[in-house]
């Protein structure tokens, strides 16, 4: 198993009611697999998983990417700075 930290921002944090979660995922889980697991385990975040942006170790990550060991994962909506 892979122990990861998931940071949540903006609407994702509001929906989850927390800024971060520690999650166990199977080795070689992809980003898509991680989203599926969160959608299953956290009903409040299920809908958001369809459009969420994901970063792994501070770089944008996409569905097919494998989540590395001890990754810092973040989940957030499209950015709106400026």
């Amino acid at each position, binding site marked *: 198993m892979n122990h990861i930290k998931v*940071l949540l*921002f*903006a*609407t994702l944090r*509001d929906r989850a009611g927390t800024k971060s979660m520690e999650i166990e995922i199977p080795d070689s889980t992809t980003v898509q697999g991680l989203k599926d697991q969160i959608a299953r385990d956290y009903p409040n975040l299920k809908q958001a998983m369809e459009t969420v*942006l994901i*970063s792994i170790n*501070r*770089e*944008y990550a*996409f569905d097919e990417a494998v989540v590395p060991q001890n990754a810092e994962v*973040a989940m*957030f*909506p*499209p*950015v*709106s*700075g*400026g």
Partner: protein
Amino acid sequence: MQPSNFPTIFSITESELDLNDLLAKITLPSTGAAAIFTGMVRGETSRRGSTQAKRGEARETAFLEYEAYVPMAEAKMKQVADEIRERWPVVEGIAIVQRIGKLYPQTPTVLIACTAAHRDTGVFDAARYGIDRLKEIVPIWKKEVGPNGEFWVEGEYTPKPGE
């Protein structure tokens, strides 16, 4: 002066933006021109260009609350600066600064500044590119608070692999 000596400033801050100070930090002996963009919190947003306001009414904003994923935001700001240097190698200094926290109308929230020897070198385009890219890839979000409650401002861009 070699490009490796060109100053690049990128930061997320809770402090007031000081344009004089930021400009001085990216002004070299060879610098003759600076293009600076700043964004401010709008206290009133007219119906035109707004999706939230009701017909014929201006939307009022009490304040915006900004947050950032700070270490990634700073990395992405550096990336924006790198992209600017790749496209406009004549650009000398670059400053990219986002203020976060609770920000009230008429307050500057973000600054992108590019300096160069002359004004006809693309500095205006470089600054414009910088703010466009910041709004696409730098992980910052804002929540608008007004008389009708609060809502997150929605971004529109989905980064592609390699961004």
